[in-house]
């Protein structure tokens, strides 16, 4: 029984006395070598027709040296990658409370839809008469995003959140240039995600940081104090990275506009407010939306994503090319700056027309939920986060606890004082409990931050078990059971990895080991 009267937890002894195996495997836990150790250059897993004899026309540029690329037969490839997959944790494995990342259920319907030949097997440069359905997807996705946000236009090509930030900030710079203004400063709260300052700096802005007030939100007064005729924009995340709604946002936006600057909103946390509030009514000028968060397109181990940007009337004319234009003949693309439909376009963010594969998945999610389902999803996400916070606040410490949380519950490490343990140790112990850890050490404004985002995808039983695990860890930490933490994870495919060693002498690719005779010298 754990200290709360729940069922027994696994004892902490780690297979002591269990026999070593010859293979290094442990039943279903299978070790797997690198492709370069198991593959051979002469093996191939694809049968390709041999080109009949012909005279190559490579103009003397034929490759002469070997590539040294190993190949695998199909069964070997299948086994290699299946074994690798089993060393990963995904949303389908269990609760994935990674704050700021919105690891919600990824419906397989979306995958099926994205693979329809009419979407997956269409080239971006086919004549537009042959891709009216693909353009229809963009139009429909835009309609939903505009309806959800109350904004004027959508720049649909950015490839992820950070790319959307870049697009929005370029639109802001373009608008200032069109007004004959050169401004140099972008205001960013201390709690912002790293991509915000990195984006502003990428296009030459100087980043000035805005402190948060004691309750974790941004003070209008602090913004006013920082505003000047040299400020181009404020970048504000709302709900913010502490999981709180910036309640003075309307006044902040007014102050920003009064100073002739624009208001960029980071929409990474959009999942909290679907149908609850339209950002267009809050004075936002540009906001990216991570379709791979709020709209459930899979994170795929780090990408791909999509980061369309909604724009206010003031910034809409500067949206990048291509722009989608509806005219008598149907839908078309304005693909060049200056073309009708893109007269003041800021330029081009990337080749082609955005992440169609993600658009289809996101639209599939939207259609499935509908207006009612989306609002319910946000409410459930917020409810679940507040529930977790309410159930843990007596054993962990909650900064800014006087305000309701949005879709994330933020904790700091004050409750670990005197235990000799850190936020990282809690995260690693959670792995042993069968969970992916929460986001740790972000936002930076909170010491030893633990940011928990359950999303709307968890049942109450799942939330309760997770809460039970964290409560048990909290009791164990305070009871001095440090080995459970410092040695953690005990049960993962790997124990803690030496990151310092990895960075000191980086090994970033496989190289053929020296033959034994040389190695001996």
């Amino acid at each position: 029984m754990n200290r709360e009267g729940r069922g027994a937890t696994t004892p902490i002894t780690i297979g002591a006395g269990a026999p070593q195996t010859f293979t290094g495997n442990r039943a279903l836990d299978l070790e797997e070598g690198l492709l370069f150790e198991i593959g051979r250059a002469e093996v191939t897993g694809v049968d390709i027709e041999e080109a009949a004899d012909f005279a190559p026309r490579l103009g003397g540029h034929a490759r002469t040296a070997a590539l040294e690329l190993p190949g695998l037969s199909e069964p070997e490839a299948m086994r290699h990658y299946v074994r690798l997959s089993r060393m990963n944790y995904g949303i389908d494995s269990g609760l994935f409370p990674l704050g700021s990342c919105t690891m919600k259920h990824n419906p397989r319907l979306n995958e099926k839809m994205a693979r329809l030949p009419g979407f997956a097997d269409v080239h971006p440069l086919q004549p537009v008469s042959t891709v009216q359905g693909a353009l229809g997807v963009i139009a429909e996705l835009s309609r939903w995003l505009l309806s959800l946000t109350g904004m004027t236009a959508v720049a649909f090509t950015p490839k992820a959140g950070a790319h959307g930030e870049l697009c929005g900030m370029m639109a802001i710079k373009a608008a200032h240039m069109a007004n004959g203004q050169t401004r140099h400063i972008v205001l960013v709260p201390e709690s912002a995600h790293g991509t915000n300052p990195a984006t502003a700096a990428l296009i030459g802005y100087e980043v000035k940081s805005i402190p948060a007030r004691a309750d974790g939100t941004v003070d209008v007064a602090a913004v006013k104090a920082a505003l000047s005729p040299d400020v181009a924009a404020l970048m504000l995340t709302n709900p913010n990275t502490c999981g709180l709604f910036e309640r003075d946002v309307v006044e902040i936006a007014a102050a920003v506009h009064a100073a002739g600057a624009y208001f960029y909103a980071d929409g990474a946390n959009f999942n909290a407010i679907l149908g609850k509030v339209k950002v267009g009514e809050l004075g936002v000028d540009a906001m990216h939306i991570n379709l791979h968060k709020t709209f459930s397109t899979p994170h795929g181990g780090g990408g791909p994503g999509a980061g369309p940007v909604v724009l206010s009337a003031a910034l809409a004319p500067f949206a990048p090319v291509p722009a989608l234009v509806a005219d008598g003949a149907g839908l078309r693309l304005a693909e060049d700056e200056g073309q009708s439909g893109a007269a003041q376009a800021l330029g081009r963010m990337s080749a082609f027309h955005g992440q169609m594969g993600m658009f289809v998945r996101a639209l599939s999610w939207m259609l499935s939920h509908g207006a009612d389902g989306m609002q319910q999803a946000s409410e459930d996400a917020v409810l679940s986060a507040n529930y977790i916070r309410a159930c843990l606040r007596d054993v962990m410490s909650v900064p800014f606890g006087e305000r309701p949380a949005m879709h994330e519950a933020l904790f700091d490490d004050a409750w670990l004082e005197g235990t000799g343990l850190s936020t990282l140790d809690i995260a690693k112990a959670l792995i042993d409990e069968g969970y992916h850890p929460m986001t740790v050490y972000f936002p930076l404004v909170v010491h030893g931050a633990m940011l928990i985002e359950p999303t709307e995808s968890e049942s109450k039983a799942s939330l309760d078990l997770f809460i039970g695990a964290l409560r048990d860890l909290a009791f164990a930490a305070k009871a001095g059971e440090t080995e459970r933490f410092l040695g953690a994870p005990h049960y993962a495919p790997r124990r803690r990895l030496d990151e310092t060693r990895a960075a000191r002498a980086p090994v970033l690719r496989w190289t053929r080991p020296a033959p034994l005779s040389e190695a001996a010298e």
Partner: protein
Amino acid sequence: MRYLPLTPEDRTEMLARIGAPSVDALFADIPAAKLNPGLDGLPGHQSELSVERTLGRLAARNVPAGSVPFFVGAGAYRHHVPATVDHLIQRSEFLTSYTPYQPEIAQGTLQYLFEFQTQVALLTGMEVANASMYDGSTAAGEAVLMAHRVTKRRKAVIAGNVHPHYRETIATLSRYADDGVTALPPAPNGAEDILAAIDGETSCVVVQSPDVFGHIVDLKPIAEKAHAAGALLIAVFTEVVSLGLIEPPGAQGADIVVGEGQSIGNPLTFGGPYVGLFCTRQKYVRQMPGRLAGETVDADGKRGFVLTLSTREQHIRREKATSNICTNSGLCALAFTIHLSLLGETGLRKLARLNHANACKLADALAAVPGVKVLNGAFFNEFTIRVPGKAADVIEKLAAKGVLGGVPYSRLAPKAGLDDLILVAATEINTDEDRAAYAAALKEVLA
């Protein structure tokens, strides 16, 4: 709603535990007048069947590449992808995992990224590759920014035969970053004078090979001139399969190599998501953008992999980061890696040879059509034809006859004044019948 597990009773219990009178009490920080605005015009939730109908109707309004003789390329290519690839990338543990920030439970992702980085380095002949960028064009933009950091100069020379979308992506980024760009004019016949544009202020020269018109460019003299001027050579490719047959840029003196990896493992999907490849020399690795997987050991001494050198990245360095990139193209990189492991050296060489052979046959078939001129001497799987009249009209008329015959250059660069050029791609998917159908249709259109 099938995706939402909480029941009304659960919600009531949870609210009671929180001590909130209603869900809306949790939204108390939203200005009351703005709360619950209503989503006019949006329908309610739908069954899976109903969503399939709606999206199926939209999909049916596109002409899939596989349904017609298909020769469209210009930066995205239709290749055959083994069924194994799509099966494996849909394994839950790959598909629904996050960036491997917790390496102990993400060794699957980290190991394939390490394999991906190695494969990309071997293909390009470079020393190190990163764990992917969004696509080839944004990788090219980032390469230019990196060259500025390395050389501490801020003027890039962009060859005229770089894909126009790549040129615009670089130019847009440079314009807003207040960096200089010298963009040379396109030279459809392949005789470009890049060397003359390089001077003592040049930070980098961006050259594509095979270029947008399909010409294979000798990078060595450009590398020499660039290096003599203290500049870097950035080599770009849009068709990665070409590296199975032609000399890699790493062997020709390139300092940074970027390209589009879509051709291996990834479907066309109307332009995205794709996978940007980014490689450089070991000595520049700390100036690189993007994530890097590296080898290390765990507490028991077992080999394992982690994300490393993250002091370059935005989450650590914020405004001093080498790039703002966070989410990249992980799953597309996995598709690339699986497909390339299946091919191996043997398969890749065969595939590349078949592509080249098919392109040679197609070039001969089209050259025999009256009025058509093939502009290329040397090419890989893509070349340029000059047609009488407007290329865009010819392509439309071909489409009406059920042949997707390529990309009018004027679509990519409307202001270039090159309205009679069509970029034509051939891959292993094309049959003799496809080629015959194209030649016959073109003959009719031009008659």
